[in-house]
């Protein structure tokens, strides 16, 4: 709370500064084309050359009031402007290389210090996406991928992903922010406990972050995907940040119809703007219907979104106030059913729906005068989801199967399931998220250095009000389920509070411009029990980006700008609700398994233990990013190269642990079935007490993900006459996955009637190194006269490799049946039981597998008709490919590529 008090005091002090603003004369420097402020432009006396001032973050500068000399305004990348001070204080600088009217259909490297890709509306129109996933093709290292909308789509930035859920922290730790409000997935508990079938498990997206299928692209004005070190204003992330800004204003009524090989999309929007009232309203809706296989109606994904966005601005002499209010609804529905004609009318279906209602209000206050306080922004957002998974299946058992029912520890009789029943299992989740953020931007008046100080804090709450796993234990879809029904309401709400401060400077000097952004973010989890290691702990995320731009150079008569920049930053992602509060595990042991012809006399007695698999030692996942970049611009042709290294040693993973339990093994052999008149009583049965090892999983910080690589982009100017622009981008990625925690494994072989009673403990299990090197060559042509645009993209994958990290076949230790731990001795490999702990890896499994060159050629065309009211676009990915056969250790591998195409129509009225 001290932070809050500090901010309030600071605001009051700063407000007083406004009164002091009359002693200077102010001006503003804008880009002549975009009319956007130019930061860090130098204002000098044209005659003496004496630097008088620099422009601040809003493009403004202050001069001593008595200054009447001619001004020379310079900023790198712009033609110098020599002018007398103007009465309105507006100075327009013209870029050395004009970008006016340029239509960019690729992602562009952001011009700021943070390494990020900016994707504008034009690029999206040209790309013709169905969901946000398709946009990632434009990132360095990205490649067009056929949409796969029947399972969740997760983001993997700077990574060659692995399907293992033990390395999902990378996608979990990528934050999606839409119009300032993050999409929280921390309270997502939508998994079917005990599910083993592909129908359910392939759609489990818990602890994996945002499902990008649910984000429609049509309202998006621009996207910024931060690959490098983001501002400390953004937290609860490790890997990246996706900032989406949606359209505001306009007067169009728009429709979009898209169809490709797997999906159909329909979009309608009405844009309203009342310029004189500075009020805009945008209403839109879209509907996507995708099928895994166009011939199969029973497996599909549907998305319905609705959005209403209101924006109002009040302009006053001293300040500007803006209010945004967004109301969003989105519904995602996964459906998968077996054909009843093939299953004798037996029901076998999976249905998962996500319904998200979100409300966002943000208030933005900007001062216009000379004040230390430049702006204050308050964002409040809340969302409520109603998520429901419904799994129905006619269960027909092949053998007598039981359902443990006991909710308490101890001996109990199990329920013997009927051989045929219709099982129904629901997962009811109602994640609630509330988010509040306050940002204050301050500026110390200074005539040498352009500066901004950002102070802020945010608070996030996640709670789930759902009923959780709901099923009748007498008719389970998944038999042998080790969890019982549990209401999610019992789980305490996750609270996260952060405060941050960040300074930004830009200092133009004769030997170049120096820029720096340095900040610190402090985050703490609240509402945790004291038992948790995170209790009362604050996690610090220091992040710094620095840049140095050389003075203007010239090459073959073309202006040349070179910037070197570097960034380093710590990033912290708190564990999710499921990772902190996993379901209790019920570990049951059969003590008596008595079968009788008369069902009433059958008896299965269990010993039930309850294990709480929560790991109170769990810490947040932390990723340290380091990068250096070079940005060269020669006459409007720009090349950027970034080398990065991101090391996250504390990624979340599910780890198994073994423990010894005791149970009685009753000997029923003495029972004469013919004399029984009821279930056999336990009291009279002889028994032996046995030990048994049983494993359970809990979350640890054992996953290491090391991302290294080089990203590069070359964008040329549009060549005249051929009206074509060349973009070359790509990346070399090397991703190392590793498990830093000892893993355990119990062989499942049964020797002399009993499963092997030993568990091996293995070090450095489950590691791999993957590499990929790709380059996309995109030629895009824009013929304004014909209202025609087309592009060809040759997407070359030079190679991909994968290599498992060599691990020992031998355990370091083993757990004996009584639970004691012993060191492994070489002679143990000869033991009748212990020999099974030796694993089967051979040297060749750790050899590097390399897949050589492959290239796909993609084509996209857009044509505007009827005064631009009708756009027709089509794309064909993998229109042509070069994927030669290759030899892998004596085996010829043939590769096959199938084209993917689609068509769309946009109508603007």
């Amino acid at each position: 709370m001290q932070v809050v008090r500090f901010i309030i005091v600071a605001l009051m002090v700063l407000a007083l500064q406004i009164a002091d603003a009359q002693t200077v004369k102010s001006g503003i420097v804008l880009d002549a084309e975009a009319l956007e402020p130019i930061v860090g432009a130098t204002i000098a006396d044209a005659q003496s050359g004496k630097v008088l001032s620099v422009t601040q973050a809003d493009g403004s500068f202050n001069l001593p009031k008595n200054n009447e000399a001619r001004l020379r305004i310079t900023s790198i990348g712009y033609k110098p402007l020599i002018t007398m001070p103007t009465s309105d204080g507006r100075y327009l600088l013209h870029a050395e290389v004009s970008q006016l009217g340029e239509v960019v259909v690729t992602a562009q490297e952001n011009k700021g210090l943070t390494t990020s890709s900016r994707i504008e509306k034009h690029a999206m129109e040209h790309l013709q996406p169905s969901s946000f996933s398709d946009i990632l093709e434009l990132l360095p290292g990205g490649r067009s991928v056929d949409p796969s909308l029947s399972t969740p789509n997760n983001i993997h930035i700077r990574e060659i992903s692995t399907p293992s859920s033990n390395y999902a922290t990378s996608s979990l730790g990528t934050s999606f922010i839409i119009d300032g409000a993050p999409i929280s997935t921390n309270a997502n508990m939508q998994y079917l406990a005990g599910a083993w079938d592909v129908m359910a498990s392939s759609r489990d997206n818990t602890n994996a972050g945002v499902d990008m299928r649910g984000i429609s692209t049509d309202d998006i004005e621009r996207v910024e995907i931060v690959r490098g070190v983001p501002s400390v204003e953004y937290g609860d992330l490790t890997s990246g940040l996706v900032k989406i800004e949606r359209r505001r204003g306009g007067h169009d009524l728009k429709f979009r119809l898209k169809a490709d090989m797997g999906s159909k999309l329909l979009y309608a929007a009405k844009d309203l703007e009342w310029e004189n009232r500075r009020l805009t309203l945008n209403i839109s809706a879209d509907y996507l219907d995708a099928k895994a296989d166009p011939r199969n109606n029973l497996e599909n994904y549907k998305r319905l979104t609705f959005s209403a966005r209101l924006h109002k601005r009040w302009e006053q002499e001293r300040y500007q106030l803006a209010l945004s209010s967004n109301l969003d609804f989105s519904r995602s529905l996964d459906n998968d059913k077996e054909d009843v004609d093939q299953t004798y009318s037996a029901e076998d279906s999976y249905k998962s729906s996500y319904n998200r209602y979100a409300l966002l209000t943000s208030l933005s206050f900007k001062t216009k005068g000379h004040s230390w306080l430049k702006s204050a922004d308050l964002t409040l957002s809340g969302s409520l989801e109603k998520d429901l998974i419904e799994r129905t299946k006619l269960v027909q058992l092949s053998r007598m199967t039981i359902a443990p029912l006991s909710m308490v520890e101890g001996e109990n009789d199990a329920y013997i399931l009927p051989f045929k029943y219709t099982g129904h299992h629901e997962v009811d989740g109602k994640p609630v998220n509330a988010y509040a953020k306050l940002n204050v931007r301050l500026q110390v008046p200074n005539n040498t250095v352009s500066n901004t100080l950002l102070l802020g804090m945010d608070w996030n709450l996640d709670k789930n009000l759902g009923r959780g796993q709901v099923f009748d234990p007498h008719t389970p879809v998944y038999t042998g389920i080790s969890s019982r029904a549990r209401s999610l309401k019992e789980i305490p709400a996750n609270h996260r509070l952060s405060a941050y401060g960040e300074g930004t400077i830009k200092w133009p000097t004769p030997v170049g411009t120096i820029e720096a952004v340095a900040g610190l973010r402090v985050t703490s989890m609240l509402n945790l029990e004291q038992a948790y290691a995170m209790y009362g702990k604050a996690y610090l995320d220091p992040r710094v980006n620095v840049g140095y731009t050389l003075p203007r150079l010239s090459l073959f008569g073309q202006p040349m700008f070179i910037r070197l920049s570097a960034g380093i930053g710590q990033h912290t992602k708190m564990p999710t609700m499921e990772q902190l509060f996993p379901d209790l595990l019920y570990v049951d042991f059969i003590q008596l398994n008595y079968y009788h012809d008369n069902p009433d006399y059958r008896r299965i007695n269990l010993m039930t233990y309850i294990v709480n698999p929560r790991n109170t030692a769990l810490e947040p996942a932390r990723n340290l990013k380091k990068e250096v970049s070079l940005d060269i611009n020669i006459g409007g042709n720009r090349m950027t190269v970034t080398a990065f290294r991101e090391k996250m040693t504390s990624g979340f993973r599910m780890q198994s642990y073994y423990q010894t339990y005791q149970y009685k093994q009753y000997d029923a052999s003495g029972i004469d079935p013919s004399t029984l008149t009821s279930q056999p009583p336990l009291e009279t049965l002889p028994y032996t007490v046995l030990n048994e090892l049983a494993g359970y999983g809990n979350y640890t910080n054992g996953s290491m993900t090391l991302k290294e690589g080089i990203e590069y982009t070359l964008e040329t100017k549009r060549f005249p006459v051929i009206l074509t622009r060349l973009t070359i981008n790509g990346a070399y990625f090397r991703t190392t996955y590793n498990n830093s925690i000892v893993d355990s494994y119990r062989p499942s072989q049964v020797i002399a009637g009993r499963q092997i009673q030993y568990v091996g403990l293995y070090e450095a299990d489950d590691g791999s190194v993957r590499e990929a090197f790709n380059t996309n060559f995109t030629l895009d042509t824009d013929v304004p006269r014909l209202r025609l645009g087309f592009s060809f993209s040759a997407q070359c994958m030079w190679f991909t490799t994968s290599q498992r990290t060599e691990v020992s076949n031998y355990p370091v230790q083993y757990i004996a049946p009584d639970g004691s731990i012993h060191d492994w001795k070489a002679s143990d490999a000869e033991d009748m039981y212990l020999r099974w702990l030796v694993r089967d890896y051979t040297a060749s499994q750790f050899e590097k597998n390399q897949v050589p060159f492959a290239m796909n050629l993609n084509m996209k065309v857009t044509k505007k008709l009827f005064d631009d009211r009708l756009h027709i676009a089509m794309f064909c990915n993998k229109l042509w490919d070069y994927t030669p056969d290759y030899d892998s250790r004596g085996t010829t591998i043939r590769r096959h590529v199938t084209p993917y195409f689609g068509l769309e129509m946009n109508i603007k009225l």
Partner: protein
Amino acid sequence: MLNSIVMMLAMALCLTSCNSDDPIPVVPTTVVSLEVPANLEDVVLSGAKATLTNVETQQVTTIEASQFVKDENGYKMMCNNIEAGTYNVIVSGHLDFTLKGVAGQKDFEVSSDNVVISPTSHDLKMTISTFTAQGGFVISEIFYTGTSTPEGKSYSGDQYIIITNNSDVTLYADSIAVLESAFLTTTKQDYDPDIMSTHFSVQACYMIPGNGKSVPVEPGQSLKLAINAINHTTEQPNSIDLSDADFEFYDETSNPNFTDPDGAAPNLDKWYCYTATIYQFHSRGFNSMAIAKMQTSKEDWLENYVYDATYLFVFGDFSKEMTKSGIYKVPNEWILDGVNLSVESVREWNVLDASIDAGWTYCGKVDRDETRFNKSVIRKQDASGKYVDTNNSTNDFIPEAAASLLKH
């Protein structure tokens, strides 16, 4: 031994020739030799009795078991001082033996009429021809596909295997194990070492328990070994009542996910199984099956009959040297019968040595063929009702036969 008999014979001849006054000469030593079928080993004769009835005088001479002496071809007995004449000879008794390692037994009675015994002809040869002791235990049926429910779902708890005594002697099924191959007939790998010519690599071994002579099986009789020896028809009307099975594959476990109903039938002794879940036969028939007479103790086998193999795994863009460690093996000599099972569309090789099964049989011609349910592989019978066993299941089995225990 033989020398002394010759000596005695010589003396006897001398004595008879000297005593020429007697009208009916007495043959001092008559030797009755009993020849047992040559393929029997470890033969023990018990309760033997030879009766020599003089056709003229109806005088009966009986030789009791104690006088039977074992020799290399069978047994011999001596009969002293009987009158020369024409005799009807009957030899009966009980034989215990092993036949290809399997304990067996048979009562016999052989007779020979109007045999002349005289001082010059006193060696009688009796050959046991009432049985041949050919054949042995065979797998007569494997029902591995399971049944289908009225809703078309698969039900696999009613799998069974039938082994039949295909000989004409009683054989003991004690220590006969049902073996499932460790390798799939649908995935050929060049395992190194390749031991197929000497051993069968197995992933499951369930043995019929007994003290050696606990489980006699009469000639032509069968043992029904059920995955679950219960009456399945109460739960699955299309299934089978297996509550009368002779033995059951029971998997004792404390894990409630894998409850195995323990029917009334005695349980097979589970020596080894690759999985701690429920054991059942591969329902598409990707593994070969065999029965073997286990000729060592469980401890010895578990300790010493295990090996590691390597092979090159090739799939798609992978080509890796792999190790399959911990493969149990059973010497081919222990194997009484074996059947390669596979599916035509995915079959790659046989995993039993050709001396055990040179062919293969099936239910379903394509992988996951749903018409395979309720079908079995059944050994053909010849005109006499004996099972055909040419060590080639392509020839010996009826593929896709209606399961014999299913009511049709």
